[in-house]
């Protein structure tokens, strides 16, 4: 073995060891700072983890773009019909007077709010873009109570890491990390473009997460669960989306 190849072998070995150590430390740090998404396993876990980690680092405090009133879309596309669930239709017949939002999990004071109560809290209005992962979009003004306000009312425990939210439609549930849950633009929305939130757009209550694609803004919200572990929900992938083949994180 010549000098050159021995030197090469040692250098390669050192580089490989260094690489492996860097990778191990990175994985540890990523886990510690919550940069690993719940759907990190499987064939596409690498890309998903890179996307979530990179965007989470970049967007920790960023604000979704807000638009002027003149940019509001004249024809926002609702993309769904009214839920067929009997429970929904009963509540709709009563003008949603009996609609309630339950909040449980890792909170000091589990509670249940009526729509009237939610509407009595300080509200926020914002004109934001809603883009579907299919490629279409619209701009609308959304009004609601910041999710962070409701979470403050119930007292989120310090070990909380995610907020899971459930629709009255059984197949629809999702979750966001605390960065999105506590973000000032994440709203429990009950008004759109100045009027009541139409049923087609998620009325009476929709969680709007404007820094992610439309499918994270789940319609007809009835329950929030604060947790430190998404493994206990559904298949443990964080939401119904990965169970249907779609990414949990929808920042792109």
């Amino acid at each position, binding site marked *: 073995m010549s000098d050159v190849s021995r030197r090469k072998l040692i250098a390669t070995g050192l580089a490989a060891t260094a690489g492996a150590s860097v990778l191990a430390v990175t994985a540890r740090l990523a886990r510690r700072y919550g940069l690993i998404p719940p759907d990190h396993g499987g064939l596409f876990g690498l890309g998903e983890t890179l996307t979530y980690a990179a965007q989470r680092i970049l967007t920790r405090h960023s604000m979704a773009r807000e638009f002027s009133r003149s940019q509001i879309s004249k024809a926002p596309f609702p993309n769904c019909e009214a839920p067929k669930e009997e429970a929904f239709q009963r509540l709709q017949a009563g003008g949603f007077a009996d609609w309630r939002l339950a909040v449980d999990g890792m909170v000091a004071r589990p509670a249940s709010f009526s729509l009237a109560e939610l509407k009595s809290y300080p509200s926020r209005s914002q004109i934001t873009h809603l883009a579907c992962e299919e490629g279409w979009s619209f701009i609308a003004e959304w009004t609601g109570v910041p999710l962070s306000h409701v979470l403050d009312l119930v007292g989120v425990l310090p070990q909380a890491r995610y907020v899971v939210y459930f629709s009255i439609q059984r197949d629809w549930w999702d979750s966001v990390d605390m960065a999105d849950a506590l973000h000032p633009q994440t709203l429990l929305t009950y008004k759109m473009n100045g009027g009541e939130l139409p049923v087609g757009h998620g009325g009476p209550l929709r969680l709007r997460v404007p820094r*992610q694609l439309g499918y994270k803004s789940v319609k007809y919200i009835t329950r929030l669960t604060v947790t430190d572990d998404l493994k206990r929900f559904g298949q443990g992938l964080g939401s119904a989306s990965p169970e249907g083949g779609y990414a949990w994180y929808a920042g792109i």
Partner: protein
Amino acid sequence: MSGNPLVRFDEGRVGRTLVSPSLLLYRETSRARARLPTCYHSRMGDSAFLPTSAAAIPATRVTSRPQHSALVRVTHWITTLCFLALLVTGVEILISHPRFYWGEAGNVLTPPLFKLPTPASRSSVPTGYGYVLPDQNGWSRYLHFQAAWVAVLTGLLYVISILFSGHLRRNLLPSQSDLSWRAISIGIVDHLRFKRPSEAEARSYNLLQRLTYLFVIFVLFPLVIWTGLAMSPAIASVFPAAVSVLGGQESARTIHFFVSVFLLLFLLIHIAMICLAGFGSRMRAMITGSAGTYKERP
């Protein structure tokens, strides 16, 4: 060796006045130096600096230096795989809404800029077809972004390394003297006439080839990455100007589509040119590094 007007030995050094400067970049070992007169070590691009008579250098052995460096070969094939994955998944994502808009927003209730005459994978899109294609959006989006990550990281590695290795300067950037409208038009005419390059010319990238590669690497790829990222609501929240200068998120999507069409066009022409230049030897050159059958004429 005394009969060779271009290469001669001068106390173990290559005569500076007689040989193209690019040859001097070649790091010689004493063994290689001893072989130099008979075995002309050419790398892709070297002959671009030599007068055409360089092909007449007496040579009996097949060149031993790779035509494409290992880094170029590895990044080429990783990029190829990623591009094919991005292409297939891009089409799958596209057919969930084969309509395009200009500006920030657009949906089936607003008039499109144009639409593609294909069926859609969503019943909500009016296409005129009586059926809906199966939904492949989930895994397509997962794979699209995974392939994009690998392609972008590979591209960064490639660009950084060609900056330092001299590959960019020697083999991709056209020399000042080559770069003229006259040379470009001659190149276009030669291509249109399917004129085969001389052996010496075939050893290096020609002018049109250089300009095309530079355009793909430094214009189309950055643009497709930028317009792709501009569609991300999270990225838009951090770099709003990156979206607004494009005209909005739907404009970014439309530009992304056209840049992808240009990249596909490049791929098709690239494959066509490889078939014309000799599919087997070109593939061998990009896989093993040496064209194999290429022998310099005595």
